[in-house]
């Protein structure tokens, strides 16, 4: 077995990056070792084969596409640095109020601590007694008697219970004596009070809720939920998933799949189940046409939790149908449901040019239309076609009518291609938006190919 340093020399020899001295050393090694000669031959053959690997030709001139993208995205030299700078500034800017608040709180805390640590002296027993008289938490004797349960009165005192004040106090140290002064004169005169368990005032105050600093509270559950899509057919799974969807209105659903474009085909087939139309952005269209490996994101809104589940169930059915019983051909297995983060919402807003949440306000007209609003381009086009006799054909007798979409989802190529904001498809999508139905969701559905 060759030593590692010899093997290093041999690989560097193949790279042609040896000094004269190292080269002489390798020559010597090659003369002496058969193993070294064999290894070098193999390494040289591997490198030669690598060099002769076929070089695929570029199928298109990318310059046209790149220059077009520069225009579409309005890119310019130096913009990236400015963007980075502004991102950093924005990042700091968004945190600035919190930093300021935290600093003020810290300074207040520190100042209070310093002030009280200098001015505070422990109270004497007399002071304590005086203050006890006016303590709101120390009830009068009659009230205290009422607060003490009969069970406490009758039961023998155990070690866990409050200690009974001893009758003979002459032998006790002064510290133990002090609690006797907490009762007022009236209380002391009543002989039955002396038999009651003594409750230390200090303990009583520290246990009150109003003085607790870190009280237990319910924390919103934001952990991701992983669900096997096919399992949504089961009643229990469906119910628990529905419950999750009702906890919020903005979600992100990540669907890992083997091939994004193939998975998208399943989405396309499942969409009519909930009368969902798809507006596919230009770059996504190209990639679907070419059947390229692509991740897609669908933004859908105005969809109720029940509709979303129906859609996902159909998605699973379509996946099985298209796979034709071959498990390897199935594209979709599980999904991951998370709440949409503020950043995702901002990204979506910058892409669409508006904040899509909340949805557009309800129209005022009786039929759900706003008569003051001009017709959208799409509606005007459809109306024109209908008037010209080229509209949606009437369903034939005996055939199930094809329902027109009630809402649209925007489909974008998610990664690595970034869609251009303000594209024609995005405008069409914005144009097609309808007022939100109560309880409807905003969903980012990501099809992520491996």
């Amino acid at each position, binding site marked *: 077995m060759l030593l590692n340093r010899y093997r290093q020399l041999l*690989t560097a020899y193949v790279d042609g990056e040896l000094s004269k001295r190292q080269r002489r050393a390798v020559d010597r090694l090659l003369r002496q070792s058969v193993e070294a000669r064999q290894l070098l031959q193999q390494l040289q053959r591997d*490198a030669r084969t*690598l060099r002769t690997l076929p070089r695929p*030709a570029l199928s298109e001139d990318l310059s046209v*596409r790149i220059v077009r993208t520069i225009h579409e995205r309005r890119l310019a*030299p130096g913009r990236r640095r400015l963007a980075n700078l502004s991102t950093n500034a924005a990042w700091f800017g968004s945190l600035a109020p919190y930093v300021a608040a935290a600093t003020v709180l810290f300074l207040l805390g520190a100042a209070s601590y310093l002030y009280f640590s200098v001015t505070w002296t422990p109270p004497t027993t007399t002071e304590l007694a005086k203050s006890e008289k006016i303590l709101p938490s120390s009830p009068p004797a009659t009230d205290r008697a009422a607060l003490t349960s009969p069970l406490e009165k009758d039961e023998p005192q155990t070690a866990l219970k409050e200690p009974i004040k001893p009758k003979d106090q002459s032998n006790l140290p002064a510290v133990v004596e002090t609690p006797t002064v907490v009762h007022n004169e009236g209380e002391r005169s009543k002989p039955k009070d002396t038999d009651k368990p003594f409750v230390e005032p200090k303990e009583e105050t520290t246990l009150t809720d109003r003085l607790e600093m870190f009280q237990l509270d319910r924390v919103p559950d934001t952990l991701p939920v992983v669900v096997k899509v096919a399992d949504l057919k089961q009643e229990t799974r469906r119910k628990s998933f529905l419950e999750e969807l009702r906890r919020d209105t903005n979600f992100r659903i990540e669907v890992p799949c083997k091939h994004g474009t193939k998975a998208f085909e399943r989405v396309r087939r499942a969409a009519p189940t909930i009368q969902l139309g798809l507006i596919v952005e230009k770059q996504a269209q190209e990639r679907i046409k070419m059947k390229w*490996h*692509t991740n897609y994101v669908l933004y859908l809104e105005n969809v109720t939790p029940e509709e979303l589940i129906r859609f996902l169930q159909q998605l699973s059915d379509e996946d099985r149908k298209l796979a034709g019983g071959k498990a390897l051909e199935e594209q979709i297995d599980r999904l991951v449901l998370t709440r949409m983060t503020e950043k995702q919402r901002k990204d979506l807003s910058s892409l669409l040019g508006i904040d899509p949440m909340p949805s557009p306000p309800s129209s005022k007209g009786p039929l759900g239309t706003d008569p003051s609003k001009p017709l959208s381009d799409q509606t005007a086009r459809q109306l024109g076609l209908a008037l010209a006799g080229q509209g949606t054909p009437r369903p034939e007798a005996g055939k199930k009518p094809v329902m027109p979409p009630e809402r649209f989802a925007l489909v974008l190529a998610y990664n690595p291609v970034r869609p251009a904001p303000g594209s024609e498809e995005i405008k069409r999508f914005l144009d097609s938006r309808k007022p939100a139905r109560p309880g409807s969701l905003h969903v980012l559905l990501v099809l992520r190919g*491996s």
Partner: protein
Amino acid sequence: MSADEKRLIAECNQGNTEAFGELVRRYQERLYHCVYRLVDNVEDAQDVVQEAFLSAYQSLDGFKGDSLFFTWLYRIAVNTAISLKRKRRALARIETGDEGERTFEPADSSEDNRPGYALEQAELERRVHDALNRLSPEHRAVLVLKDLEGQKYETMAEILQVPIGTIRSRLHRARLELRALLEKSEEAK
């Protein structure tokens, strides 16, 4: 850097996108070959090249001409390709539960077996291609830059932004790993 290249870059900085189109036309093929071997997928390679050019365009005003324009371009593209490959490998690990047993796309053996190649050579090429795909993105990058692109250690260090010693040791490990993978495939034959 040639005077013509300098002129084109200056024009780009003044907002002339056609000048940048010219730079793209000059280097796209070469960059594509390199990136293709790193990502092993036509679509990804095109996307990476496009993104690299777009990034380069946006950072063009920061290019001082200390290195060759193409080396600078290489650096952007190779790093983009490596991070893409890393992400894909991480996902593959989650999905398959093992490391490197599965490639993302089956090797297109038909391309290697086209007429004109001796059968043995084609078989070797296919195995080298497969083995290359199974290397880590960093090891693959050094082999591609060295053997396919014929770059020197110094340039490679500049492109990958690591010391020359790292390049040397990465290449050493990459070659031995490639050899081990090839031996394994020879045994399995």
